C-alpha cells in the first residue's frame, strides 16, 4: 500500500475563495493509499516547502499530490523540494485547481466538486508513478562542422574560441563556399574576398580546428554527446602535408578544364586550386580530366614538383571521429535554369545568372572585374536584371521567396553602374523585399543615386535580335507591356537546397522539408536546433539566408554546441519510452512513427550468439517523450514512462460517476 500525502493550497484566496480547500483536504483522507492531508495557505512559499519536506520525512510518504496551481507553474519547485527530502521527484504530481478550476469557475460548489475530482485523479495516478532517475550521459567534448562556407567557418571559429576542438568537413577542394565567389556584399559594398579570406586563414591556423577538405560525412552513429562520424577523405593525388603550394604543377599542367569557380567561364587545369587564395592552398588532380589517368602518360606535374608530393596511387581515406555535437552548414545551390527556355539561358551567351555576374564583377574574376559580356567581350550599355527566376513560381520553380535576390540585384545594378558610368540597368521585380538593417535605404540608393530603372513586372521572354537581346516584360503599375533592347540579361535564380541534401539528412537522421531544406526544431523558439538532439543548423541549408543572417545563425549554433559540450555529463528528464522485450512482436510500427529516429531494431541472441528474434530498442538519449510509439504499439510493449497506459486508465477510472 502506498503512502500518499495530499497538500491543498489556498494560494492566499486565489483558490480558497471559490474552492472549499478544507473540504478537499478532509475528503481526500478517505482515498485509498492516502495517509496524510492538509490544506495550507501558500504551499510554494518557503515555509510551505519546508512543511512538505517535514511531512514527507515524518510520515514516510512515498508519493505526494499538491493540489494548487498549474504544473507548468510550480511542478519543478515541488519536485525539487521533495527530492531534497529524499523522495524521488517523479513521485510528485500536481492537481491543477487554480488555473483550471478556482479561477474559471466562480461557483464555489462547482469548484469544490471539480477540485475533489482533479485531486482524486492525481492521487490515483501518483500511486502508479514509478521512481525514475534522470538519464545521465557522458559528453565527448569535440564538435563537427559539416560545410566550410561562411556558416561553417563562423561556427567553427566560435567553438574553437572557447577552447573546444572542432573538425570542419568540406566537400570542395577549399574552404570558402559561395561567399568567396561573390564580388562585393550588400548593404555595405565591402569586398567579399577581403572579409572572407582572413576568416579562412584564421580557421586554418587555429590549433583547435582540424580541416578536412575534399571530404564528406558518410555515416553517423550514436546520439547527443556521443556521436561517431565516418568521414571519407577523397584522394587528392597530392600529399597534403608535403605540398608547399608553389603552384608550379598547375602552371605546367598541359590539360585545360573549365573552372566551376568561375561558373564555367575562364579556364583552370587538371591539377589546380580553384583560386589563388584557396585554403588549404593544395592543388587536387581532377582524375576525370587528367591526361595520365586517361592515357597512362604525361606525369608532368610529378616531374616538376619540388617536394615530390604528387601521388597518383593515393586512395580515399576513411577517418572515424568521435564528437559530441554537430553543426550542419552545407549551404545552397542555385536552381538549374534549363527549365526556363523563355529566358534563353544556355542558348544566348549574354543571358547569365547572378553568380556569373558576381565573378564578372570580381576583380579576381574571369574578366578581372571589367564589365565584358560573354559573347563578344563588348561593354554592355544596357543590362536587364530579372528577379524571381524560379522563386515564387509554382509552375516551374519553387513557391518560396529566395529572400536574397532583391538585395543582390540592387547591389549588382550598383556594381554595374560604378563600372559603366553611362550604362543603364533595368530591374524587373515583383516586390522589393528589403527588410533588413539598411536594406531599404540600399535599394533606394540603387534607384535614386545609381539610376537603376525598377519595373514592377515579370519578363515573359528574352530573344536575340542581331547583337541585342530583346526583353519582353510588363510594367504592372501602368498595366502596359515593356520591351527593352538589352546587351546583357542577368537572371536572379532561386536558391535551392544542396543537391543531395536529402541524402545527408538521412545519414544524419535529421528532418528536411519538401524542398530538401533541413528542418529546425521549432520555427520560432528553436530555430538552430534540429529535432535530433546535438545536431544544429547554420546558414542556407535551412532556408534561403543572406550573409548577416547566416553568420548570426552560425554563432547561435556555436553557442548551442558550447552549451552542450560545457557539461561533464548530460542529464535529462527520464520521460522516455521503454520496451518490454518479452512482448515485442517486431512489427516496428513504433520505429516508423517515431519523429526522432530514437527507435531501432535490436537482435536478441541465444547463448551461442545466434539472433533468435528482433525487438524494438529505444535510445533514451534521443527519445523526446511524445508517446506516439506507445499509442501505436499493438502488443502494448512499448510504453512511455510517466504516461503509461495504467496511469492514464487510473486517471480515467478515478473520474467514474
Amino acid at each position, binding site marked *: 500500500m502506498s503512502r500518499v500525502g495530499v497538500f491543498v493550497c489556498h494560494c492566499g484566496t486565489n483558490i480558497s475563495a471559490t474552492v472549499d480547500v478544507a473540504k478537499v483536504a478532509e475528503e481526500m483522507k478517505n482515498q485509498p493509499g492516502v495517509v496524510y492531508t492538509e490544506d495550507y495557505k501558500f504551499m510554494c512559499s518557503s515555509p510551505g516547502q519546508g512543511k512538505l519536506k517535514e511531512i514527507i520525512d515524518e510520515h514516510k510518504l512515498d508519493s505526494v499530490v499538491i493540489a494548487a496551481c*498549474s*504544473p*507548468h507553474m510550480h511542478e519543478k519547485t515541488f519536485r525539487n523540494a521533495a527530492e531534497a527530502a529524499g523522495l524521488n521527484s517523479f513521485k510528485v504530481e500536481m492537481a*491543477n485547481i*487554480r*488555473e*483550471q*478550476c478556482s*479561477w*474559471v*469557475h*466562480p*461557483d464555489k460548489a*462547482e*469548484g469544490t*466538486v*471539480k477540485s475533489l*475530482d*482533479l485531486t482524486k*485523479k492525481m492521487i490515483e495516478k501518483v500511486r502508479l508513478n514509478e521512481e525514475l532517475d534522470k538519464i545521465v550521459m557522458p559528453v565527448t567534448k569535440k564538435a563537427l562542422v559539416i560545410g566550410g562556407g561562411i556558416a561553417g567557418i563562423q561556427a567553427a571559429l566560435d567553438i574553437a574560441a572557447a577552447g573546444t576542438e572542432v573538425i570542419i568537413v568540406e566537400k570542395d577542394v577549399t574552404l570558402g563556399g559561395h561567399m568567396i565567389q561573390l564580388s562585393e556584399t550588400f548593404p555595405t559594398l565591402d569586398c567579399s574576398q577581403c572579409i572572407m579570406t582572413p576568416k579562412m586563414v584564421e580557421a586554418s591556423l587555429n590549433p583547435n580546428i582540424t580541416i578536412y577538405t575534399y571530404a564528406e560525412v558518410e555515416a553517423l552513429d550514436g546520439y547527443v554527446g556521443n556521436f561517431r562520424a565516418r568521414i571519407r577523405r577523397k584522394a587528392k593525388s597530392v600529399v597534403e602535408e608535403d605540398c608547399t603550394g608553389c603552384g608550379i604543377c598547375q602552371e605546367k599542367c598541359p590539360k585545360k578544364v573549365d573552372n566551376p569557380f568561375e561558373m564555367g567561364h575562364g579556364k583552370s587545369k587538371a591539377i589546380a586550386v580553384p583560386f589563388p587564395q584557396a585554403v588549404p592552398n593544395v592543388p587536387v588532380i581532377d582524375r576525370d580530366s587528367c591526361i595520365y589517368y586517361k592515357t597512362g602518360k604525361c606525369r608532368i606535374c610529378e616531374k616538376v614538383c619540388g617536394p615530390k608530393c604528387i601521388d597518383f596511387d593515393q586512395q580515399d581515406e576513411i577517418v572515424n571521429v568521435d564528437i559530441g555535437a554537430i553543426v550542419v552548414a552545407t549551404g545552397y545551390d542555385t536552381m538549374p535554369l534549363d527549365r526556363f527556355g523563355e529566358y534563353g539561358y544556355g542558348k544566348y551567351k549574354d543571358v547569365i545568372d547572378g553568380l556569373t555576374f558576381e565573378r564578372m564583377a570580381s576583380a579576381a574574376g574571369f574578366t578581372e572585374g571589367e564589365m565584358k559580356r560573354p559573347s563578344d567581350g563588348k561593354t554592355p550599355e544596357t543590362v536587364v536584371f530579372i528577379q524571381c527566376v524560379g522563386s515564387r513560381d509554382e509552375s516551374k520553380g519553387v513557391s518560396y521567396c529566395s529572400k536574397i535576390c532583391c538585395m543582390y540585384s540592387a547591389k549588382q545594378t550598383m556594381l554595374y553602374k560604378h563600372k559603366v558610368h553611362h550604362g543603364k540597368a533595368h530591374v524587373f521585380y515583383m516586390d522589393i523585399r528589403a527588410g533588413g538593417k539598411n536594406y531599404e535605404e540600399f535599394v533606394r540608393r540603387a534607384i535614386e543615386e545609381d539610376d537603376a530603372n525598377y519595373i514592377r513586372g515579370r519578363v515573359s521572354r528574352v530573344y536575340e535580335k542581331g547583337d541585342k537581346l530583346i526583353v519582353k516584360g510588363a510594367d504592372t503599375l501602368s498595366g502596359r507591356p515593356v520591351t527593352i533592347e538589352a546587351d546583357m540579361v542577368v537572371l536572379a535564380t532561386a536558391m535551392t537546397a544542396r543537391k543531395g541534401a536529402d541524402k545527408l539528412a538521412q545519414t544524419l537522421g535529421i*528532418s528536411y522539408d519538401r524542398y530538401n531544406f533541413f*528542418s529546425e526544431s*521549432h520555427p520560432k523558439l528553436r530555430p538552430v536546433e534540429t*529535432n535530433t538532439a546535438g545536431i544544429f543548423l547554420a546558414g542556407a541549408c535551412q532556408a534561403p539566408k543572406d550573409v548577416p543572417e547566416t553568420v548570426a545563425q552560425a554563432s547561435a549554433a556555436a553557442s548551442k554546441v558550447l552549451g552542450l559540450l560545457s557539461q561533464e555529463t548530460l542529464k535529462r528528464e527520464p*520521460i522516455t519510452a521503454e520496451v518490454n522485450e518479452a512482448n515485442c512482436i517486431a512489427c516496428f510500427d513504433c520505429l516508423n*512513427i517515431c*519523429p526522432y529516429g530514437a527507435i531501432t531494431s535490436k537482435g536478441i541472441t541465444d547463448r551461442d550468439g545466434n539472433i533468435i528474434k528482433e525487438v524494438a530498442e529505444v535510445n533514451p538519449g534521443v527519445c*523526446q*517523450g*511524445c*508517446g*506516439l510509439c*506507445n*499509442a*501505436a504499439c499493438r502488443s502494448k510493449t512499448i510504453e*512511455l514512462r510517466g*504516461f503509461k*497506459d495504467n496511469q*492514464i*486508465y487510473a*486517471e*480515467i*477510472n478515478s*473520474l*467514474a*460517476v
Partner: protein
Amino acid sequence: MSEEKVENKEVWTPRIIAYVCNWCTYGGADLAGTSRKTYDASVRVIKLPCTGRIDPLFLLKAFERGADSILVSGCHPGDCHYNTGNYHSRRRWTAFRDLLEFSGIDMRRIHFSWISAAEAVKWVDVVNDVSEKTKELGPYTEFQRINEKIKEYDGIFAEQG
C-alpha cells in the same frame, strides 16, 4: 449506476473528459485561468504529452466510466511540439472513427479541436460548446446501459466459470 440521476434530470450535469496535449491546449486552458475567463465546470482535463499519445481505447474507457462527451484537443496542424504527433493523432482518428460509428458509438459525443497555448478564448468557447451540446443530448445512457449488460454477463460467465 446512474439510473437515479437520469430520472432526476434537473440535477444532472454532464461529465466531459478532455484529453489535451501538454504544450498547446493545456497551456491554452491555463491561460484562460490566468485571464480569469469563466466557463462550464463540467470538464475534466487529462494531460498527455501529445495528442499522438492518445490510444483510441482511452475514449472508450472514458465512456465506459460514465463520460457523456469527450473532447480531444492538441496543437494546430504544423505546430506540434513533436513535429508530427498531432498528424498521427488525426490520421489515427480518421481510421478509427468509422469503426466507432459502426460499433454504434454516438459520434456527436466526441469532439476534436486544435487549440494553441494562446487561444484561451477558444478553449472557453469549445468547452462551453461541448457542454451545451452534451446537455442537449442528455446523459449517455445507451453506453452506460451496455456497461450494465456487460457486467451482468461478466457475472454470468464468472458463475459458469
